[in-house]
């Protein structure tokens, strides 16, 4: 029995945290926003290329890619702590979708062009999105290279020219969101039959867990921001962080994250081990991570007061990402229902 990340995983996580602090500071997220709202002439895709390239360089995008295809050949346990860091930085890029969900799906369901695509994922030259029935929206779709669309127990591989994209506006201005329409065909199916439904479940679980991991990171970041602010901001002649009302808001918010975290870690372990209960474990993790991030977001806003209620201050980047991801791949209620179906039938 040992329930903690390995030393290597902690070192890797710390390296990624440093990398993203350098390449994806709040100003980079702000720039992604400005592109989306048309403040930057020519617009953009909301991507933080410097971070993406550096993540490829460091091997992060190839964590799930087999060594034979230029990756690290590691597991869910290795990449999930790194996705926490992506959340902490509010990195808009689809790291979870490409490096975790797509790479995991491809390596477990090899087909004619799998190896080449995995190699491109590892080197950072392919953005691969994974879509599920239930949500028509994908981020970064306008610059994505490959779409792996799941539907009724089948996975279909499509290029950008084979899907129809219609830009829509997310509350999170850094998420370049598109409604994606597509038509399955015999030619596009890459996984089906018995393997198909298993592959789709596993991909969905990874997508949900990837979001849960980012929500944990977002929660920690919002807590950090708020603790820093509450220690500095003075009212009635003292730092507002000395008030018990403020302390207790933040203690509860911190507790929600603290108890979501082990569920996220356990779900990663279960997916890596092929535990038959992995879907339940993922749902416990996503249910609690979604709830925790929303609790932290509200506490953070309340403790910041009016300054948090502006788009000039950084908090809203993290808060709005938390709102987006909290309901992405199933919100807390959806995932509680999934646990309930197993416990209570």
């Amino acid at each position, binding site marked *: 029995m040992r*329930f903690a990340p390995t030393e290597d995983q902690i070192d890797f996580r710390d390296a990624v945290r440093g990398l993203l602090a350098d390449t994806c500071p709040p100003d980079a997220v702000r720039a992604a926003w400005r592109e989306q709202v048309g403040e930057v002439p020519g617009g953009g895709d909301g991507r933080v290329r410097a971070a993406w390239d550096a993540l490829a360089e460091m091997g992060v995008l190839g964590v799930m890619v087999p060594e034979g295809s230029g990756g690290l050949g590691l597991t869910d346990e290795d990449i999930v702590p790194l996705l926490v860091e992506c959340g902490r930085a509010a990195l808009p890029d689809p790291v979870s979708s490409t490096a975790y969900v797509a790479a995991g799906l491809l390596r477990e369901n090899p087909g004619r062009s799998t190896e080449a695509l995995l190699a491109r994922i590892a080197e950072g030259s392919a953005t691969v999105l994974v879509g599920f029935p239930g*949500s028509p929206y994908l981020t970064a779709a306008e610059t994505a290279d490959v779409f792996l669309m799941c539907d009724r127990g089948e996975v279909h591989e499509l290029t950008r020219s084979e899907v129809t994209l219609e830009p829509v506006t997310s509350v999170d201005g850094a998420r370049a969101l598109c409604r994606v329409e*597509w*038509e399955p065909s015999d030619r596009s199916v890459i996984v089906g039959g018995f393997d198909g439904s*298993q592959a789709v479940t596993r991909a969905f679980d990874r997508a949900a867990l990837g979001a849960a991991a980012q929500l944990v990171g977002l929660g920690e970041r919002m807590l950090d921001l708020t603790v820093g602010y509450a220690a500095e901001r003075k009212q009635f002649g003292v730092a507002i962080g000395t008030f018990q009302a403020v302390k207790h808001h933040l203690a509860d918010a911190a507790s929600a994250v603290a108890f979501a975290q082990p569920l996220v870690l356990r779900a990663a372990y279960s997916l890596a081990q092929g535990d*038959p209960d992995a879907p339940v474990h993922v749902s416990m993790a996503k249910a609690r991570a979604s709830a925790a991030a929303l609790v932290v977001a509200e506490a953070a806003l309340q403790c910041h007061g009016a300054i948090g209620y502006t788009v000039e201050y950084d908090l809203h980047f993290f808060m709005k990402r938390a709102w987006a991801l909290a309901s992405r791949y199933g919100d807390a209620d959806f995932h509680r229902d999934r646990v309930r179906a197993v416990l*209570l039938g």
Partner: protein
Amino acid sequence: MGGIPSVFPSTDPGGDVRFPGRSAYGPDRPGSDGAGSDASSGVGQTGVMDLTWSDAEEAFRQECRTWLTEHAPNPALPSGDTAAGFAAHVEWEKELHADRWAVVSWPEAYGGRDASLWEWLIFEEEYYRAGAPQRVTQNGIFLLAPTIFEFGTPAQQDHYLPRMSAAEDLWCQGWSEPNAGSDLAGITSRAVRDDAAGGWLLSGQKTWTTRGAFCTHLFGLFRTDGEAERHRGLTYFLVPLDADGVTVRGFGRLDGDEGFAEVFLDDVFVPDNPDEGISPADAAATMSRGGTLGGIDQGWGVAMATTTSERGLTLRSPGRFRAAAARLLDLAREVDDSGRLTERLGDRVVDAWIDAEAYALYTLGDVTGIVEGRSPGARSSFNKVFWSELDIRLHRAALDLLGPDAELDGPWMKGYEFALSGPIYAGTNEIQRNIIAERVLGLPRK
């Protein structure tokens, strides 16, 4: 086929999502069986994450389960917070001790099995799973004993620990006073030096002392330096309750049982700890009249070591909540079978189950850290707030499942009444939230 629905459906993503293989969540396996893997990790594996138990640990679990199945009282004992029930519980404690189950993690010399912290967790899981009696010795073995292991002299360890594990000495905690609850440093009970007799004269009043009317000994803080204020000038004393000058008055807790007591001390003599070199018989005679733990005027630091135990995993091991969540789930399944389980109530049951799992996993992380030399420190306040509030939600859900039977004075109501004490004792949850804010998050104290 084709296209994508425009709203998120409340069904599973792939349409026919399956849960292949053997699940740990089937009705025949309601929890408390670890991570649900049959794989064995082998012993001594470090570094990687591993949520399985080794063969040796599984064997230990089986040994626990077999013994508890054969010995756990059925029907359950009467409440340990009544005189008759307490006596029955002490007999149970002696039975545990006879087969060395009373303090599995202690050294063999003191009645234990030298079990690892992991094995202790397994024992606790099995203990609660078996529905075995509450531990009326818990304030001794979980709160005082860690302090004796850390601060006691070898002579004190040899004297007090075997008697404690054998349930010969039954310890209660003398922290709170009428005007010192959450503000523990506000205590006024004092110990006055008696040089002629070679010891101290203790006076004052302790209160809300759990099972004080039935225990034989009290550990508590007394003011040894009248000039010093607050946290300074306190000393940790060990006091036999049959000493001259001690008066104990039991009184009813919320559930009506005489689980509380006031302890009045009027010039109660406690001798200095015996000098090294005197005969073991003389030393034992002295220690049987009490003593001090961890140095004169050093009591605050010594006591804080105990409160950390109380808040953290030792008092509320995850096995307790997983077992309670499993019973709650059984109850919900019964109600569901009769068609009376509402959507909302079912959700609360599932939430309690998820929280019990989260607590168990959090604790596994704590234990991993302790085994590898990382102390949870102030983070133990997270545990305390979480388990105590989970316990209330869990019992409230059970009562609501019972419908009109909820008001009957049954085990769930009793459990609920007990759960309500959780956010109050061991440092109120308000104090815990301050600790989290100040010592975990780093918010300013003033």
